[in-house]
């Protein structure tokens, strides 16, 4: 059976599975949409949270970024897992004790102010839309490869499917569907990694293979990778290339952003007990870490295989460069999507893939008769999907990876769209502007806002402000600078009042948005940036993705100062905070 047919079958089967489970599980749970997680064991809830959380950025994009950035991409690994420690210790148990269902609801009540709630909704929407743009990039890549279309058409198809998927609505809340999605996703990620690790190092565990010797000549994998890429003028894989300050802040931004993202926090509102909120975060992290500890192995091995496929022998020998006519099938398939491009600059019919921006090496390359890097485009986001093909794995593995990528992208995108539409219809319309709105109209408003969000995210997804994982990182920066500090101060600092919290959120979100738009363009529209997005132009070398950490500090500082200068929160709010801090009595809080 050819690959295309097999891919359709595997993808079709997994989609049928999700829908089947959703219908089966639905019968008992239609009454309470949000309560899907309640009564579910913390292990199962953790697995569902992991599926909800791990998006196209984790599945498709992250290992690709690791492949090309090497050590520097460690910040994604630490940043997106370290946040769960903060979530488990600083937020989840207390928000569960509080017992409401949305993040703006908590902020509105704790800061006894509709303005605070409104500002929280704005922060939530800005962060979530940015997040969806990143997902759209991943969806576009996955669908364009899956249907063998160009990226743009793939994106449109993906948008349509996400719309139907999200509008089906309640399905998303069904925890069991997400458990199935997690299984597909993790199986699809680890199986090829095991095969490839086995081939390259003889060690079937990718986490250990990464630090093992290669089968080919006994040199350690990472040493060999360093050699291979540096021979072609690229930067050393294991060396730190970026600034230390930027790396620390970037990691910190991702960590506190994780703890501030509404669609993740919501998962912990619905566990049965405060106790479970703490351990649920741990279980979620177990299931996330399985993928995250595999990712660096996938990245480094993909890079080694890719380079070895094109540069088949010693650098400089004519026959050591792959003939274009003899390029493998995966190469041709990805050329169709426009995400992989080749240009025969020296007209020799062979592929020269090297770093022509490295002046020393470019001079050397000229002596070989090379006229510049001929791989004019290698989109980082294709690496995970192309990886099993590059490693010549069996077709069923390749088909499985396509299914896994689609599962990851769709589940998270749908979840985020639901978070956006709920906050517009529930937090904005029903609670503030149109208190008398009927249930039917509320649902209609939710659907319209969902369609609007897909259109905006899709349009911006055509010209994404970065690779999927980088775009998503911006969303984390926004959540980090606005929502996380407001939540944390709400629990740990009784003195912070409404004026302080509102000022803090506005300062945090405003400063971070300003910094991002300066380098990435106003509202991410290409060409409208005021300064070129290069390290030399960045303030103290801090990249826009890392600025969320600074925004959060400004938020904390301004909220504390303004609160000190204004009246303390009323007595009943101080009691509310004291009550949140103690697990006892959580049972009553559940029934809202």
């Amino acid at each position, binding site marked *: 059976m050819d690959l295309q047919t097999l891919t359709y079958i595997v993808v079709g089967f997994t989609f049928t599975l999700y829908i089947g489970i959703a219908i089966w599980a639905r019968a008992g749970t239609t009454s309470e949409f949000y309560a899907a997680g309640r009564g579910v064991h913390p292990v199962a809830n953790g697995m569902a949270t992991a599926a909800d959380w791990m998006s196209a950025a984790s599945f498709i994009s992250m290992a690709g970024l690791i492949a090309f950035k090497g050590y520097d991409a460690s910040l994604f690994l630490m940043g997106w897992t370290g946040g769960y420690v903060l979530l488990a210790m600083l937020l989840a148990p207390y928000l569960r004790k509080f017992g409401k269902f949305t993040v703006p609801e908590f902020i509105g009540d704790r800061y006894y102010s509709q303005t605070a709630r409104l500002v929280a909704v704005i922060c939530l929407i800005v962060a979530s839309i940015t997040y969806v743009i990143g997902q759209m990039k991943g969806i576009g890549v996955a669908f364009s490869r899956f249907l063998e279309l160009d990226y743009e058409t793939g994106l449109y198809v993906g948008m349509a499917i996400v719309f139907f998927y999200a509008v089906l609505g309640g399905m998303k809340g069904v925890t069991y569907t997400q458990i199935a999605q997690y299984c597909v996703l993790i199986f699809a990620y680890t199986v090829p990694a095991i095969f490839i690790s086995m081939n390259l190092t003889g060690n079937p565990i990718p986490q250990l293979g990464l630090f093992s*010797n290669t089968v080919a000549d006994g040199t350690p994998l990472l040493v060999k990778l360093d050699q291979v890429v540096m021979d072609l003028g690229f930067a050393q894989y294991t060396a730190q290339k970026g600034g230390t300050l930027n790396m620390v802040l970037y990691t910190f931004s991702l960590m506190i952003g994780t703890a501030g993202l509404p669609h993740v926090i919501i998962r912990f509102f619905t566990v049965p007990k405060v106790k479970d909120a703490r351990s649920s975060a741990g279980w979620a992290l177990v299931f996330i870490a399985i993928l995250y500890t595999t990712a660096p192995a996938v990245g480094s091995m993909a890079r080694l295989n890719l380079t070895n496929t094109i540069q088949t022998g010693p650098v400089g020998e004519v026959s050591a460069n792959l003939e274009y006519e003899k390029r493998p099938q995966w190469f041709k398939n990805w050329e169709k999507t426009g995400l992989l491009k080749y240009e025969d600059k020296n007209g020799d019919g062979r592929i020269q893939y090297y770093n022509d921006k490295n002046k020393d090496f470019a001079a050397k390359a000229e002596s070989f008769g090379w006229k510049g890097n001929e791989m004019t485009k290698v989109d980082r986001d294709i690496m995970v999907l192309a990886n099993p093909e590059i490693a010549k794995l069996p077709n069923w593995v390749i088909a499985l990876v396509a299914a896994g990528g689609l599962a990851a992208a769709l589940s998270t995108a749908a979840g985020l769209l639901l978070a956006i539409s709920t906050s517009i219809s529930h937090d904005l319309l029903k609670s503030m502007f149109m208190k008398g709105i009927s249930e039917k109209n509320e649902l209609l408003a939710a659907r319209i806002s969902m369609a609007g969000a897909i259109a905006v995210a899709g349009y911006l997804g055509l010209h994404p402000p970065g690779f999927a994982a980088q775009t998503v990182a911006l969303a984390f920066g926004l959540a980090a600078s606005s929502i996380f500090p407001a939540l944390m101060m709400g629990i740990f600092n009784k003195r912070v009042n409404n004026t302080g919290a509102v000022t803090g959120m506005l300062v945090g979100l405003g400063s971070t948005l300003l910094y991002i738009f300066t380098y990435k363009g106003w509202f991410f529209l290409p060409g409208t940036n005021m300064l070129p997005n290069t390290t030399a132009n960045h303030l103290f070398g801090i990249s826009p993705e890392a600025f969320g950490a600074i925004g959060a500090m400004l938020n904390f500082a301004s909220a504390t100062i303004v609160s000190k200068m204004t009246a303390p929160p009323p007595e009943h709010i101080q009691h509310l905070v004291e009550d949140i*801090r103690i697990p006892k009595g959580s049972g009553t809080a559940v029934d809202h």
Partner: protein
Amino acid sequence: MSTQDLSGEAYWKANIRLVTICLVIWAVCSYGFGIILRPVLDAIPVGGVGLGFWFAQQGSMIVFLVLVFYYASQMNKLDRQFDVHED
């Protein structure tokens, strides 16, 4: 035991102490071993690179996992000790 302060305030103080200890370990293993102290730790070789690299791409995540479960179990003990547990 009988002389111990069992008020909500004491519970909160004990909680803050535990969180602080955990977060110090959290920061040292990720920002410390993985990034800032990497040059020092890389003196210890692991699979052709150094221990710092291992912490950045594997070790920190394992430490996070242990921390969350340790915190959860310690808090369960505190909840009982101060009689603020659920049910």
